[in-house]
C-alpha cells in the first residue's frame, strides 16, 4: 500500500469492492451506510479499508441518516460516500435534494436490483434510472454514471468524486447487481497516476464573502465548517449570502443556476463509448450490464456483415441528447435493451425526434438479455 493508501496493483475483485477502492483512491475518507443487498460489500470493504487510511466508516440506523451524515461530513471538509440499493435509494431522496440545493459534493452509489418494493433483492435490475433523474421533489439536474465492469466501478467512482467536487453536487453511480457482484481483473494504478480533484475554496477573506455567489462557471467556491466564513447552509430557497429568501425571483435565480451549472457543461461531463458505430444503419443503445450482452450481439452481427453498432452510455444523466440526435439522422432504428419497462428508451425516442424508430427490449429484472434477443431485434431492420 502506498502512502496515499491506494492499493496499486492487479486484483481479481468484484464491482462493489472495486467501487470502494475507487472511493479511497479518489480521497474519500468518510462512509456512512446501511446494509442492503447487493451493495453491502461496498460498506464491508469500506469498514475494513477506511481505518487503514485514517478515515471513518459508520453504519447508520437507516439510509436517511446515511445520506444526511455524508452531507454533514462533506461540509466538514471530507470527501464522503454512501452506497445502497433500491429501497435505500428511495429513503435517501429527500436528503439528495438537500445536497442538490445546498451544493454539497458527495457520491451516492445505487447497485440496482429488481423492484418495485423489496422486489428481487439478490437479482439484477435497471429500473431506478428515472428515479435517479427525478426522484427527489423539485427541479434539478443530476449527474449519474453507469459502470459496466468492475474496472469501471473503480474508474467511475473516482470520476464521480471528481465531478461532485467540480460541480458541487451529489453525484450518482447507477451500478447494477450484475456488475456489483461480478469478479474480474481490476487494475489499480499508482497513486501519482490517479487524478484527484478537490472543491475550490474561497480565495477571499470572510469579510464580505458571499457563499453562494458564483463566477462564470456558476459553481461557488465552498467554505467548509470551522474556516471562519460563517456560512448559513439551508435547503430553503436562499440568496447569494445563503440567507433564506422565499421569493419567486430568488428561486428562479437559484434553481436556474443549479440547473445551468450542469447544462452548460454537458459536453465536458458526458461520456459515450462508440463501438462499431461507423456506417451503422441500426444502433443499439445500452448501459451497465446490458451493454456487455449488446456488445457481443453487435460483434456477432458485424461478423455476419450487418451494419450495426453500439452506443454504450457511460453517463446516463445528463442524457447524451446531442449524440442521439446526430445518430438518428442516418440510421433506421435504435434498439434499446434495458432491465426495466422502458426508461432510457423514452429518452432515445424523444431525442431521435421521429427520424429513426426506437425499439425497446424490456426485461423486468432477475435476468439479463441474451445476445439472441438483441440480434433478432436488429435483424428486423437488417435482414
Amino acid at each position: 500500500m502506498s502512502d496515499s493508501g491506494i492499493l496499486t496493483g492487479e486484483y481479481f475483485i468484484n464491482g462493489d469492492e472495486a467501487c470502494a477502492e475507487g472511493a479511497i483512491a479518489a480521497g474519500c475518507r468518510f462512509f456512512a451506510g446501511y446494509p442492503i443487498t447487493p451493495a453491502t460489500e461496498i460498506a464491508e470493504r469500506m469498514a475494513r479499508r477506511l481505518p487503514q487510511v485514517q478515515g471513518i466508516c459508520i453504519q447508520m440506523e437507516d439510509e436517511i441518516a446515511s445520506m444526511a451524515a455524508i452531507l454533514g461530513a462533506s461540509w466538514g471538509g471530507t470527501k464522503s460516500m454512501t452506497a445502497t440499493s433500491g429501497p435505500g435509494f428511495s429513503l435517501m431522496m429527500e436528503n439528495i435534494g438537500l445536497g442538490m440545493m445546498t451544493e454539497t459534493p458527495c457520491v451516492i452509489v445505487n447497485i440496482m436490483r429488481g423492484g418495485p418494493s423489496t422486489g428481487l433483492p439478490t437479482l439484477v435490475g435497471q429500473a431506478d434510472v428515472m428515479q435517479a433523474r427525478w426522484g427527489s421533489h423539485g427541479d434539478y439536474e443530476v449527474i449519474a454514471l453507469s459502470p459496466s465492469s468492475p474496472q469501471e466501478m473503480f474508474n467511475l467512482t473516482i470520476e464521480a468524486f471528481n465531478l461532485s467536487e467540480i460541480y458541487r453536487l451529489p453525484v450518482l453511480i447507477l451500478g447494477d447487481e450484475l456488475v456489483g457482484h461480478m469478479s474480474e481483473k481490476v487494475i489499480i494504478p499508482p497513486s501519482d497516476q490517479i487524478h484527484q480533484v478537490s472543491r475550490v475554496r474561497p480565495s477571499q477573506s470572510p469579510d464580505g464573502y458571499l457563499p453562494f455567489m458564483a463566477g462564470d462557471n456558476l459553481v461557488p467556491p465552498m467554505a467548509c465548517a470551522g474556516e471562519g466564513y460563517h456560512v448559513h447552509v439551508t435547503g430553503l430557497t436562499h440568496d447569494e449570502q445563503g440567507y433564506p429568501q422565499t421569493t419567486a425571483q430568488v428561486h428562479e435565480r437559484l434553481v436556474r443556476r443549479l440547473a445551468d451549472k450542469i447544462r452548460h457543461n454537458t459536453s465536458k461531463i458526458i461520456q459515450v463509448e462508440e463501438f462499431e458505430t461507423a456506417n451503422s444503419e441500426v444502433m443499439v443503445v445500452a448501459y451497465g450490464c446490458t451493454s456487455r450482452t449488446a456488445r457481443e450481439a453487435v460483434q456477432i452481427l458485424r461478423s455476419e456483415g450487418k451494419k450495426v453498432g453500439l452506443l454504450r452510455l457511460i453517463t446516463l444523466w445528463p442524457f447524451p441528447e446531442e449524440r442521439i440526435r446526430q445518430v438518428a439522422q442516418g440510421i433506421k432504428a435504435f434498439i434499446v435493451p434495458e432491465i426495466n419497462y422502458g426508461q432510457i428508451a423514452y429518452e432515445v425516442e424523444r431525442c431521435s425526434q421521429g427520424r429513426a424508430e426506437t425499439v425497446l427490449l424490456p426485461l423486468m429484472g432477475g435476468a439479463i438479455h441474451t445476445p439472441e434477443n438483441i440480434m433478432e431485434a436488429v435483424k428486423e431492420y437488417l435482414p
Partner: protein
Amino acid sequence: MKIRYQPIVPFDQEGFNRLKDEQHGLHPDDQYLKPGRIPHIWCPGCGLGVVLNTYINALKMTGIPIDRSVVVSGIGCTGRVAGYLNMDTYHTTHGRAIPFATGLSLTRPDLSVTVFSGDGDLFAIGGNHFIHAARRNVNLKVICVNNFNYGMTGGQVAPTTPVSARTTTTPYGNSEASFNLPYLAHASGAVYVARWTTFHARQLVNAIAETFSIDGFTFIEVIAPCPVGYGRPNKIGSGLDEMIYYKENSIVQNGADPRNVDIALKGKIVVGKFSEEKRPTFLGEYEEKILKKFRRTET
C-alpha cells in the same frame, strides 16, 4: 422545444449592504448574529428568542469562539435558530439534524457541534436518529425546544402533546400518550440530561455552558411557550401567561429520577439537571480500538 426563460433579477448587493450596515452592530450581541437577519420570524410571545439568547450567553460565558462552534437544525420554528447565528450553521431537513451533525462532528471533532430543534423534529420524524446518536454517544450538544406542538405548521399534535390537550389535529383533545423526553434521552444513553423552562433563563445558560465542556451526547429539554399553537388553544393564554404558568408550576429538583418527570396538561413541571455520567464516545472508541491500529508511528 424552444425555451423562453423568465429574466433573472440579479442579487441586490447594495440593498443587502444597507440592511447589514444600517441595522447591524448596534446591539452588543450583534457579533453573535448574522448581519441583516433581524427581525426574526417568530411570533410575539414565542419562547425561541429566549432560547437563542441563552445559547449566545452560554457562548459568552465559556468564551468559545464563534469560529469553533457550529449549529445544526432541523425544520420547524426552532429549526430557524440556526439561520440567525453568526457562525457556520446548517438548516437541514425535517428530523435529520442529528445524522447530519453526526457526519460533521465525526469529521471535525475540533468543533463544538450543537443541534437545535423542535420536539416534533427530534422525536417524531427524527426519533430514531436521536436514540441511535445517544446510544453511540456522538459528541453532540442537543437542545430540544419543547413547545408541546408543531409550531411551524400551525399547531398540530406532537409526540410531546399531553393527553387531553387541544391542537388543530386533536380537536377533541389528544388521546395519545406523550413522551417523557428526559427519560427517553437518559434511557437511550445521553451522558447529560436536564430540563429547564424559558422562565429559568439563568439556569439554562449555565446548563448549556456546562454541556460545552462535556465530551459526548448531551440533552437539554427547554420548555418554551408557543402561544399560537399551544397556549391559547389550551387556555393557558399568551406567551406571558405561559411564562407565569412555568413560574408557578415548576419544581426544581436536581437529580430527579427521569422516570418521574412526565408533564401533564397544565400540570407541574419538574426541572433541573437530572443526570450526568461518563461514557466513552463514538469517536473516542473508534480512535482507540480501530484507528490507532493503523496509525503510523512518527519516526
